[in-house]
């Protein structure tokens, strides 16, 4: 943040377009799979052929309701689809079926954690609508190619209140929202493929002013980092404009990830008059209290509730609980490890967070593709708990498991890593070390306590690390004392 936040206040509202994870389009039975050959998923309804008619996808409606329940919103028991008109080649009918006056979800909120505190961001509304197709500019010099596969994919457009006051808050809100829709299973959250897209409305005003400044809308910023950069750029640009005596123009802008700048989209500046009116091909959608309760019963435990439960049930620090509940699959993995390992919950958390996530990160894999199953990690932790191996040896076993050498017991056996608990064997190792290092023994006995670590290291080395550390420490102390 390089602007003077004592002078300037930033006001941000976000509009998030979230593709719903349905098999078919919102108003027709064409598939919605990503990456199909151009226009092979554009059926008659998607193409807007004459005479064809829309019929609403039940799952799309249920997903919107699910989202609404998750953000503690009102679910409209009667909502209406409206047509939004504009001409664009990726919009086949000349109108987008959306919701205008009566959206399915309204008056919700999402709590974000920022600067160690919690801030509530209002969600004005979330409405159902159809996605547009794609315009492809590459490969043609004077023409544009139109692929309508994406057209008609169900979306919810989630509109926040202008409650966000910084780029960091915007990113925190987006991440929280992203986590939520993925948790709910209503969106795959894939930002590269455009499943979760954000438009940012940004304005600035001098502190103390009660009226909002003129806002700009920056379109389709498709990663959390870009959102942050685009908003920061926009804040500084607007402040510059005002400070140099100019006025911010209300307009649509496009973020360029290469330059980190936003620029005006002149093509969208054609004074829009969308001529909304209720779509006469569709009837009012009625959602009864019974429907809502039926959908509520299918809701998974949400991230915030899960995090709180992890803190209470497993005694984890908030940070660990937050990391482990960041993704549904990770939380499930962790709970499976705790349940089967007999290990301490915090030890399990350390293994999952530090070792497993660290390794997955290096491999570029996510938890669902982990080469070590929860059962195997639990098996490893169980061997530490029953003192078959030390924590140090366990790291070696973990590496072997990662390399696909089998479960913990197989590896421990194959590599002969079982911990030495036979005290006579440990004593023998200690005596050998002392015999080889008479000077150090003398120094230790003369008061150089720090040399204790040296003897631990040497004795461990002599037992290939297999000595039980507690026994080794105790016996070493006895022997050195003379």
């Amino acid at each position, binding site marked *: 943040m390089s602007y003077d936040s004592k002078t300037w206040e930033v006001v941000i509202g976000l509009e998030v377009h979230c593709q719903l994870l349905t098999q078919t389009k919102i108003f027709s039975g064409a598939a919605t799979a990503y990456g199909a050959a151009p226009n092979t998923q554009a059926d008659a309804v998607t193409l807007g052929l*004459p*005479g064809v008619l829309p019929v609403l996808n039940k799952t799309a409606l249920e997903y919107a309701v699910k989202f609404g329940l998750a953000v503690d919103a009102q679910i409209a028991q009667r909502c209406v689809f409206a047509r939004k008109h504009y001409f664009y080649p990726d919009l086949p009918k000349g*109108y987008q079926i959306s919701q205008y006056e009566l959206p399915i979800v309204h008056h919700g909120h999402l709590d974000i954690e920022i600067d160690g505190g919690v801030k509530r961001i209002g969600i004005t509304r979330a409405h159902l609508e159809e996605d547009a197709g794609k315009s492809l500019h590459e490969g043609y010099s004077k023409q544009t190619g139109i692929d309508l596969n994406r057209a008609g994919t169900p979306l919810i457009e989630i509109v926040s209140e202008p409650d966000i006051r910084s780029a960091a808050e915007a990113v925190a809100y987006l991440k929280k929202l992203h986590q939520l829709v993925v948790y709910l299973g209503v969106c795959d959250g894939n930002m590269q493929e455009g499943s979760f897209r954000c438009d940012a409305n940004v304005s600035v005003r001098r502190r103390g002013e009660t009226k909002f400044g003129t806002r700009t809308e920056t379109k389709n910023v498709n990663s959390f980092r870009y959102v942050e950069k685009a908003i920061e750029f926009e804040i500084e640009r607007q402040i510059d404009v005002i400070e140099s005596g100019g006025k911010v123009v209300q307009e649509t802008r496009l973020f360029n990830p290469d330059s980190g700048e936003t620029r005006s989209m002149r093509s969208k500046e054609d004074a829009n008059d969308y001529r909304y*009116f209720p779509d006469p091909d569709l009837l009012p959608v009625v959602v009864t209290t019974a429907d809502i309760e039926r959908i509520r019963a299918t809701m998974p435990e949400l991230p915030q509730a899960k995090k709180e439960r992890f803190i209470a049930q497993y005694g984890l620090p908030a940070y660990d609980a937050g990391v482990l509940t960041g993704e549904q699959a990770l939380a499930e993995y962790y709970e499976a490890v705790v349940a089967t390992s007999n290990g301490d919950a915090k030890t399990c958390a350390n293994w999952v967070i530090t070792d497993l996530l660290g390794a997955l990160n290096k491999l570029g894999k996510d938890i669902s593709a982990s080469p070590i199953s929860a059962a195997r990690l639990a098996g490893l932790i169980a061997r530490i708990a029953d003192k078959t191996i030390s924590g140090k040896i366990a790291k070696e076993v973990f590496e072997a498991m990662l390399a696909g050498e089998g479960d913990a017991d197989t590896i421990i056996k194959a590599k002969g890593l079982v911990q030495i608990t036979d005290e006579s064997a440990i004593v023998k190792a200690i005596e050998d070390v002392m015999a080889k290092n008479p000077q150090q023994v003398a120094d230790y006995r003369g008061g150089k306590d720090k040399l204790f670590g040296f003897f631990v290291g040497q004795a461990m080395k002599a037992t290939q690390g297999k000595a039980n550390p507690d026994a080794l420490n105790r016996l070493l102390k006895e022997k050195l004392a003379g």
Partner: protein
Amino acid sequence: MHTQSIAELSAGLKAKKFSSRELTAHYLKRIESFDKQLNSYITVTAEQALAQADAADARLAQGQGGALTGIPLAQKDIFCTTGVRTSCASKMLDSFIAPYDATIVSKLHDEAGMVMLGKCNMDEFAMGSSTETSWYGPTANPWDVTRVPGGSSGGSVAAVAAGLAPAATASDTGGSIRQPAALTNLTGIKPTYGRVSRYGMIAFASSLDQAGVVARSAEDAAYVLQAMSGFDPRDSTSIERPVDDLLAGLNGSIKGLKIGLPTEYFAKGMSAGVQQRVAEAIEVFKKLGAEVKEISLPNSPLSVPTYYVVAPAEASSNLARFDGVRYGHRAQDVKNLEELYKRSRGEGFGAEVQRRIMIGTYVLSHGYYDAYYLQAQKLRKLIYEDFKRAFAEVDLVLGPTATDVAFKLGEKSDDPVAMYLNDIYTIAANLAGIPAMSLSCGFVDGLPVGLQLMGNYFSEARLLNAAHQYQQVTDFHKQMPKAFV
């Protein structure tokens, strides 16, 4: 053969007096001989018709098939037909070969086994009351070829009235079945909104459009309407409710039937000749035992302005898809995208369609929505409530279909408001969504006059019963224009 009723034709086919191929060939020959004078067909599908006729004959030979199997039918060119140009009488769709069938097309041809003779002329995108706005030129009225057949289903009615098809499908957004039926001595019925699927019927105004049929009698209309009605999962506005048996009740007595005469329909506007014929028809109904009383539909005079907001608004939206990108007319040598849109649409749509698109765009645009669109929706509610009150008192509402007999070709074609007022009696039924029909009640100077019956929701059987009973004691509907006998 072309003077026989559908029941007679069906019996003839079943008794092997003639084959469907012979019957179809007969109609195709008549089309060839007579349609140059009328221009009632845009496309004649002779080869396909004969193939369908052969298939029907094969079914009939095996003792299969229903009442309509092998009976020819003409389709209004607003219904999509696979592999056959579906133009909606517009240059915009001159090149449009539909890749699918409208639901009613599959019901009538695939299921019921009717034979499609071709696609009938109409006002462009069904916008008009005279069939003069067609890109393929006007259709003439067989009763006087210097006059219009009405519209928008002018091709359908001209073909049936001249014996170039036993019956034809049609569509009605503000009177497009009833007014042309009235002007050509036919029986035409627009069922309850949602009773017949709109899937594959090119949309004009979605909340008003309803498909129906024009035929030479109530009985013929009942046969065809029966086969085209029913729930369609592909149309969200289609009604999930069993279809009444429209034929079973035709012969029932109408003694005690309560008929309402709306004061507003008889107040002014009708020509003296039409008034006379309608008055005579009322007497016939009385003789049949009906009880006639005066009722009021106080908001009906506002149905025309209400309609000319709602229909153009929906049309401007429905016709936005015709942009020259995926199908239809595309302007050549355009410099940019905006020019592609503007020239494709400027060249592809005729004047009446352009007028309605502009009216619709205007009334929906920023700052005018409440004054026009919302106000029209409120008026629509008041018009609906008028009917609700009326049907608490009476079973049917009776009045004229049109103010006068058929007018001359060209007489009103450059005066949109005069043309719009043609629909003054028919529009209210579309706004309310109730079923309504027109049947012939005589002639003025040799030109047919239509009588309109309107009923409560889902009262198609009752309407057809009343019309059939009337046709049992009158013979206007049996008369054919002399030049086409």
